């Protein structure tokens, strides 16, 4: 578990530096002013939320093809971290939306598809808590994750496909150069944090699975 904690500590250090740069060094944006500084935590959370969904999708595919329960433990970890990041993403987005759009929430395509995916991952975690048989739990949640992940490209391209209130994807090409450093540092900070969280959470899921498989079946 030392690797997991090392990733978490590295992530925290990067986030502290990136956030300090974003809050006190980077200049305010021309139109959004200081409110734009929310981007330095919101966008890295969004990128890594998508990565967590992709990771969960890969684990689901790997489990169905290899039938190895270690992929189920990773899937559980990925889904929980994706749900956490999705929740955080919606909170940060709402806080940014209020001063820029005038509302906390809008049923805009980007926001709606994100909320659908957040509810889907939450639902799969709920499904996992209801099913006691480890094999059924693994198969059902893998299938449900693959179905839910269909929403991911829709979330990503929603700002291009529809006339969205949400701005286009933030990339080094669409963001001015003075904003690059805090954005990049925080992106790696959240990435390291996510990797550490998933590693530790996988260990917890694997421990529970070992106990379940070791328990004698009641008649």
């Amino acid at each position, binding site marked *: *578990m030392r690797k997991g904690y090392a990733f*978490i500590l590295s992530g*925290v250090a990067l*986030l502290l530096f990136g*956030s300090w740069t974003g*809050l006190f060094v980077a200049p305010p944006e*021309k*139109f*959004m*002013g*200081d*409110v734009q*500084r*929310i981007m330095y*935590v*919101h966008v890295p*959370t969004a990128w890594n939320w998508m990565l967590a969904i992709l990771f969960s999708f890969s684990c689901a595919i790997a489990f169905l093809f290899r039938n190895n329960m270690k992929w189920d433990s990773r899937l559980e970890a990925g889904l929980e971290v994706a749900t*956490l990041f999705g*929740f*955080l993403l919606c*909170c*940060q987005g709402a*806080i*940014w939306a*209020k*001063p*820029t759009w005038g509302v906390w929430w809008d049923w805009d395509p980007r926001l709606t598809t994100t909320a659908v995916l957040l509810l889907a991952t939450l639902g799969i975690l709920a499904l996992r808590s209801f099913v006691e048989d480890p094999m059924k739990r693994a198969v059902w949640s893998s299938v449900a994750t693959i179905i839910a992940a269909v929403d991911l490209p829709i979330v990503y391209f929603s700002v291009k496909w529809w006339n969205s209130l949400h701005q286009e994807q933030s990339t080094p090409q669409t963001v001015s150069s003075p904003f690059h450093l805090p954005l990049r540092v925080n992106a790696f900070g959240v990435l390291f*944090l996510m990797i550490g*969280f998933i590693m*530790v*959470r996988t*260990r*917890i899921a694997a*421990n*529970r699975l070992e*106990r379940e498989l070791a328990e004698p079946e009641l008649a």
Partner: protein
Amino acid sequence: MTEGVISGGWQFVWGAYGITAAVFVLYGISLVIRLREAKGR
């Protein structure tokens, strides 16, 4: 406020950073507790 330009708004910035820090710290603590419980059983 100038037309089309947002002035102020630091309370929203602190709110976003605060909730981000709180979520990460609380989740990290929950992981440590759950891992200790899992190992202790």
